[in-house]
């Protein structure tokens, strides 16, 4: 393992961990918010440097390869923008007294710790480490969701905790099985848990055991992805936690969980004798899309509404990877990136809206484009983006998924489109009700930080109109990797 002036991967972990430790003891929450932003910015720069620095060999516990690098950058980026948003958000929360400085100390520390967990999960070169870090991140969010201490919040985080701890167990069993499957060919010890070596020996792993392992992994991590019927924690966690956390949940944690599933799928793809994960993924994805689509109609809470929309999109991505043709894989990866950008952007808007209206009940929100033009049009733009309207990038990914899949699985694609249409209708129904009409409720303007949202939406628009060749190249070879 040859040496470089400095190893960004390590620092990527050190910075959030250290700042988490530091913030845990910092009393002044204003300063804490600033430091939080600063730390996120630093890790963002580091993640960018990953692209520049020539890539190291996979280490014993950490590695950087084609698949995770973009998620690392995305992770750091969204983490950064969200920290910007959260700085403004918590200020308002403190002013109205929903959060106390003591809680904020906890909040900021946990925020960094969460980022640490997710970064570790992405960097991990060891399925054990992956498991541990994903669970860490999950439990952190469990604590964050309950931060408001309201009955709803506690109930939501309790539900989250119970479901995810069972999922943790399943994921661990899957991990163990994978180890056992690999042990004979790869050899005992950490070697048999290392992605790099697992992939090189993928073809020789014990097929039936690997299939069994995949089932458990799918259920374990699938719970965190929010696949139907394991989704139950997701909407409440989104609805009851602080909005920055909802943004991070939808934007990053779901991606991280999905990333782990994809890793294991790649492992299966490398082995000709295992059961093919495609049909299972297609079925679960389809079920998820259809279910979430219909759940959108009866929603009364704006954040829960978009929580369900996240579920729907996770379904879409799973579906795409299930289809498994190169175009669909490409589209799936693209969709992951764009969804996390768009959805977190939407949550920025939603956070401000619920603060401006003093409520996150859809019924209390009306005529935003008139009372708060930026928020209203922003919400509208985000919604149009998330339902795959041009000029936003998600249009591209859905275009590719559908058009590439139709000739091979016509009926499945028809069902899929049905789900998309129903979801579309439900979302537009609710959002146009909020954005238009005669304004009701509070109408005095509030202090908004437009920058994070604008960056996100701009990035999404660019993706729809013009994908840089570097990105395309990366996505394509990763799609090849996925097969």
């Amino acid at each position, binding site marked *: 393992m040859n040496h470089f002036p400095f190893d960004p991967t390590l620092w990527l972990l050190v910075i959030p961990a250290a700042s988490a430790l530091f913030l845990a003891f910092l009393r002044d929450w204003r300063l804490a918010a600033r430091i939080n932003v600063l730390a996120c910015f630093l890790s963002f720069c580091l993640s960018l440097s990953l692209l520049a620095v020539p890539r190291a060999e996979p280490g014993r516990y950490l590695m950087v390869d084609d698949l995770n690098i973009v998620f690392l950058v995305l992770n750091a980026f969204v983490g950064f923008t969200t920290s910007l948003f959260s700085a403004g958000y918590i200020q308002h929360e403190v002013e109205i007294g929903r959060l106390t400085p003591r809680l904020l100390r906890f909040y900021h520390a946990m925020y960094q710790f969460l980022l640490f967990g997710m970064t570790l999960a992405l960097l991990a070169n060891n399925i054990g480490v992956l498991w541990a870090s994903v669970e860490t991140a999950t439990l952190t969010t469990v604590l964050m969701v309950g931060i408001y201490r309201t009955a709803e919040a506690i109930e939501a985080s309790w539900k989250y905790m*119970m479901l995810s701890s069972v999922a943790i167990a399943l994921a661990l069993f899957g991990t163990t099985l994978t180890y056992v499957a690999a042990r004979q060919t790869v050899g005992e010890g950490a070697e048999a848990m290392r992605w790099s070596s697992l992939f090189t020996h993928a073809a020789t792993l014990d097929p039936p055991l690997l299939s069994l392992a995949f089932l458990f992994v799918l259920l374990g991590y699938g719970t965190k992805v929010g696949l139907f019927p394991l989704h139950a924690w997701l909407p409440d966690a989104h609805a009851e936690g602080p909005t920055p956390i909802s943004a991070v949940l939808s934007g990053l944690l779901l991606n991280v969980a999905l990333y782990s599933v994809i890793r294991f799928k790649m492992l299966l793809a490398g082995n000709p004798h295992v059961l093919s994960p495609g049909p299972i993924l297609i079925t679960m994805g389809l079920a998820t899309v259809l279910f979430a689509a219909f759940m*959108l*109609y009866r929603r009364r809470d704006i954040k829960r509404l978009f929580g369900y929309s996240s579920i729907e999109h996770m379904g879409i991505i799973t579906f795409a990877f299930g289809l498994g043709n190169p175009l669909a894989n490409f589209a799936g990866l693209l969709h992951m990136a764009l969804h996390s950008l768009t959805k977190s952007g939407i949550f920025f808007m939603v956070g401000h809206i619920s603060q401006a209206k003093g409520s996150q009940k859809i019924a209390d929100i009306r005529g935003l484009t008139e009372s708060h033009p930026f928020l209203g049009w922003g919400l509208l733009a985000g919604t149009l983006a998330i339902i795959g*309207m*041009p000029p936003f990038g998600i249009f591209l990914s859905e275009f590719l998924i559908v*058009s590439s899949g139709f000739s091979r699985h016509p009926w499945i694609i028809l069902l899929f489109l049905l789900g998309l*249409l129903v979801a579309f209708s439900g979302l537009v129904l609710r959002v146009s009700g909020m954005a238009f009409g005669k304004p009701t409720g509070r109408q005095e303007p509030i202090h908004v930080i437009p920058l994070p949202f604008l960056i996100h939406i701009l990035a999404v628009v660019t993706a729809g109109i*013009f994908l840089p060749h570097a990105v*395309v190249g990366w996505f394509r070879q990763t799609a090849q990797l996925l097969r």
Partner: protein
Amino acid sequence: MTLVIALGCSAALLLLGIASLAMRSFSGRSTLVYAGTFAVSLISLASSLAQLLFLSGVTPAVTLPVGLPWLGAHFRMDALSSLFLAILSWGGVSTSLFALGYGRHEPEPGRILPFFPLFLTGMSWVILADDAYVFLFAWELMSVTSWALVVSHHREEANLQAGHLYLIMAVFGGFTLLLAFGLLANSAGSYAFSAMRSAAFPSWTAGIVLLLATIGAGSKAGLFPLHVWLPQAHPAAPSHVSALMSGVMTKVAVYGFVRIVFDLLRPHSWESSLLLLFLGGVTAVLGVLYALMQHDLKRLLAYHTVENIGIIFIGLGLALAFATNQIPWAAALSLTAALFHTINHSLFKSLLFLGSGAVLAATGERDMGKMGGLIHRMPGTTIAFLLGSVAISALPPLNGFASEWLTFQAILVSPNLPQWALKFLIVAVGALLALSAALAAACFVKAFGMSFLGRPRSLHAAEAKETDRWSLSALFLNALLCLLAGLFPGSVVNALGPVVQELVGQTMPQQSQPFWTPMVPIAQHRSSYDAFLLFILIVLTGLAVTGLVRWIGFRPIRRSAAWDCGYPDPSPVTQYTTASFAQPIRRVYASSVFGARETVDMPLPGEARPARVTVKIHDPAWQGLYAPIIKLVWFLADRLNPMQFLTIRRYLLLGFLLLVFLLLLLSLWI
């Protein structure tokens, strides 16, 4: 070159739209935006006409490094594109000219100005696109921007509902087109249209693609039963936007259909034409019947769009039938008729919608039951609207008749078709077409008579003011074009030559100049029509008779109370209203088609309350198709909703069951 100019124009419109966002505070931005749109559309009109008339030999194509990665954005401007771009640009010119005056009445211009140019941009990209991604991208862009315009008057709940329905239908159509392109691209191996053109498709693919294209384009154009959104959405928008949507956007949908079916697909099986002919005929008749039942002027016009789309699709169906039977000259005739009607409809429908906008601005009324007598208050608007009504009623010597006449001629060559099904169906369709033409005349007697003639039915109508000169000039420009296209159909047919040539490989016989010689679609002895000389003769006769009367002995006109069989009625309320005018036709047709029911509430002698007639009309498409779907969706939503409220144990149970199920699968699989 022309393509570059056209793209430049679309880009300029794009910038204009974005710029209007920047100038939130600037007071004159409305004028600026519309003037800019006017100028840019004029340029793109010039370029497209130049391409169509003079440069039809060469088809410029451009590939930009944007759009679908590894493919790029392909743009191409063949005769078909340039024709529709010309239609679009003319729409842009006239509507923006109209809006220069009309825009002042807009309460919230900020909700319209950014989207108006963008809407035009989207449509022009649809027309210029040469690969599937750009096409669909522009298609959806068109939908979104027009949706934003539909909900621009967002305080009315009805507009929001109309917009919601519209957006869903638009996306539905977009999805079907997406599937169609998916199939095409799968067979052709690329999303580029050039590859699809050269590819050969298996017959089942062709059939499905054609079906999908019909649904997709039809839902945008307003084919029955996919039309339901149209009469709600078009009137909801500001009138110049309604004009664009009805006059131009539906044509863009027609373009999409023609592009996919006649250019990319080129099907070989005649069965598909059955569907088109049937849908076209039904749409034409039902559209006009719906229109006859309306009281709202703009909604009436919108339903009339449905009718005309039906007529256009009849022409397309004929063209398909002939083309698939290798009778290219007849196919050329039908296609020419369809395209000619497309042009005509875009002209007079824009004219009529703009006219309704002028009336709306002057009276604040859309309900014809509150208009009347406007001929005295708004003479200019009246003349233009009258010309438009004559044109859309397919009466000589205006343009509507010319294209319908050509369609009839195409129908009359159906005996050359080998298939019996087609022979019979086409005759039936011809009857439907004739019926719709007659009903259209009735409908516009109603529309014009109720709103412009008679005595004012409301104070607003009585105090209406003539519109500003911008709007009037837009109206008269369209009216003039209607007249010219009607008087010299031969020239239009010649201009359509290259388009038809590249689509069905043959053109109608070259119409001989000079312009006063009759239009001969097939052969002199078979049929011919000369609008110009008829027009001249009518004028001359009129003058001659006037002269004759003076010679016999001229007496000045006297004014006195109306005779009315000796019962001159004091109040304008006793005039015929829209409902009463439509009553005979309603009793004849609608009672069966729409299940129209009249209930008369006649007070006993001595009672003070007024007598009233209430008419209930059911929309078969809505009742039969949409209402059940909506009910089903909400039913499922309600059934699934409890999933939000389960206990943790139940959620875990679900996961557990899934696990056991998967394990069972595995144990079976091993």
